[in-house]
């Protein structure tokens, strides 16, 4: 119904309603633009059903990741039980071929995935902000070379590159996975942020800052980046989603640390023990479903932020303001 579609304004409940001033307008209320954007996003999440579902799901995963011991009492790594037990009240998902409780593995595995999602998501977005905003704001030769670099990285297929790097490193601990994913996958976001920053470049409030004699760094950090808060959150969500998928894929093909408790590693062991063929489908189904649901939570949330952060939507609003004044 109310899908946020790039370039098209939809009359959704979280659409550009209310008396909000154009983002970052110099005559705005006292609240800094970042806070205003955040409160607007919170409102959007509440009013958009899909976003609410996403937020609730993500909240549940975060709680599970913070306090796994409250839900699963077993040690996820201990080979404490008979192997290949079926589903029962004692073992909600059965046990692995090594006699580990699968439910405990799924629950404790949440933490690893969330760490990767948040750290890699934040780091990727951070690099993208640096490159994208710097390119747009510095312009000239800087813009040319940074954009070219971004475009090149954008067309090189990331996943094979990840595989090759991880193979040379002989698989990776969580930190290595995060590093590798961050280094390779910031380009798309950087491109998005650059075009957004370019569209801001000639706005009055930035001209005002320049006239005030503010330094470039100050303008970028205090004036430009806060106006892009909603887009930044959307980018973070996308990057977190891809970090989850990439990391799980690498762990699945055996390029993670096989001793980590995580969903991708569970899938790796399931594949290695032919879990599907030997009548233990839960070993592969459960962690895969968790990845899918966590990913869906990120994707659904992204919807709401897309709606507010969509530069096309915003430009529609801006022209309307201009026409009115």
């Amino acid at each position: 119904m109310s899908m946020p579609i790039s370039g098209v304004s939809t009359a959704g409940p979280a659409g550009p309603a209310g008396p909000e001033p154009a983002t970052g307008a110099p005559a705005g209320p006292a609240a800094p633009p970042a806070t205003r954007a955040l409160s607007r996003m919170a409102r959007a999440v509440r009013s958009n059903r899909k976003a609410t579902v996403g937020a609730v799901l993500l909240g549940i995963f975060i709680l599970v990741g913070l306090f796994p011991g409250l839900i699963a009492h077993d040690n996820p790594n201990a080979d404490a039980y008979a192997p290949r037990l079926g589903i029962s009240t004692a073992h909600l998902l059965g046990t692995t071929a090594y006699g580990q409780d699968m439910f405990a593995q799924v629950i404790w595995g949440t933490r690893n995935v969330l760490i990767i999602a948040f750290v890699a998501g934040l780091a990727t977005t951070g690099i993208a902000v640096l490159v994208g905003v710097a390119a747009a704001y510095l312009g000239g030769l800087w813009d040319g070379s940074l954009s070219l670099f971004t475009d090149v990285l954008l067309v090189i297929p990331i996943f094979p590159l990840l595989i090759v790097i991880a193979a040379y490193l002989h698989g990776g601990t969580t930190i290595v996975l995060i590093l590798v994913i961050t280094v390779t996958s910031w380009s798309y976001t950087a491109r998005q942020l650059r075009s957004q920053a370019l569209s801001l470049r000639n706005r009055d409030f930035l001209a005002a800052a320049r006239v005030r004699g503010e330094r470039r760094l100050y303008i970028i950090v205090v004036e430009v980046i806060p106006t892009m808060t909603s887009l930044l959150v959307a980018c973070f969500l996308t990057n977190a989603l891809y970090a989850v998928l990439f990391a799980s894929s690498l762990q699945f093909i055996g390029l993670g640390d096989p001793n980590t408790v995580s969903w991708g590693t569970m899938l790796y062991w399931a594949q290695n023990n032919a879990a599907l063929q030997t009548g233990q489908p839960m070993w592969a189904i459960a962690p895969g479903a968790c990845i899918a649901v966590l990913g869906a939570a990120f994707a659904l949330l992204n919807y709401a932020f897309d709606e507010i952060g969509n530069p096309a939507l915003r430009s529609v609003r801006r022209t309307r303001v201009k026409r009115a004044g």
Partner: protein
Amino acid sequence: MRFAFRRAGFFLLTLWIALTINFLLPRLMPGNPALAMVSKFHGQLNPQALHALEILFGINTQTSLWQQYVTYLHNVFTGNFGTSMSFYPASVRSVIGGAIWWTVGLVGVATVLAFVLGTGLGIVSAWRRGGQLDSVVPPVFVIASAVPYFWVAMVLVLIFGISLHWLPYIGGYNVSSDTPSLSPSYFGDVLSHALLPAAALLITTIGTWILTMRNAMITTLAEDYVRMARAKGLPGRRIMLDYAARNAILPNLTGFAMSLGFVVSGAILIEYVFNYPGVGYMLLQAVSGEDYPLMQALFLLITVAVLVAILIADIATALLDPRTRTAG
């Protein structure tokens, strides 16, 4: 024309950077992984192959990095990728030659199907905006985009391969009962083995097509010439296909070229789940067997394939769509 040259220049630059990354990676890694590999295979290789490896990865040589780089580039352009470790003594080139057609067939067919079906669904769902199809498709895609490729493949194996016994799910053809030939039975065997992996690839990639086509269509439907067509009283079908879809489809093509990297990564994982004897499965075999020459060559092959596809899509768009030419 200027546009085509610029794109070609960008393509060459990217190609060069990919080649250089491939060259530098093993040399930059801590503890030189190639050294470990060479010592692992030391007894099994003849001195000549060993020497070729040492040149390839820059170990035990007195030559400068620059000299190594020139030799490496020369080898790449003459198609000399050395000897495969895991398929010794076959050359990397012949090993890849055996795998590439499986992938081309699988990914090619699945991609064409995904394009036709996805674009069609996108057109219809945008045309009947707010209709039943339109309210179902985008949310389904949102969920589907978050599902790991390999997991879709595993679920298909579980349902159609193991539970229902409908379709084979291991390899490219039945190795024990069939030999590669031009017979119809072999052909049918290959086809039945390709169905599940192709379905997995189709399921995971079609969403991008549907959604991008739908978005492009919605933008196009708001154009004045579409309104004009409506005012002229043209039949809806004609407006939908000849006016809106025709103009919306080309940007969609460019968008897809950019997402080709994802199709490739999906194919790698799906081939792995099905033990499908293509390039992706071979890449992962090379990784687990520490067969770095094969791995390097496969990485280059995949990268070049994606770059060429993007270049073709770019040039095709420029030829067919005057708007991009003026914009460039």
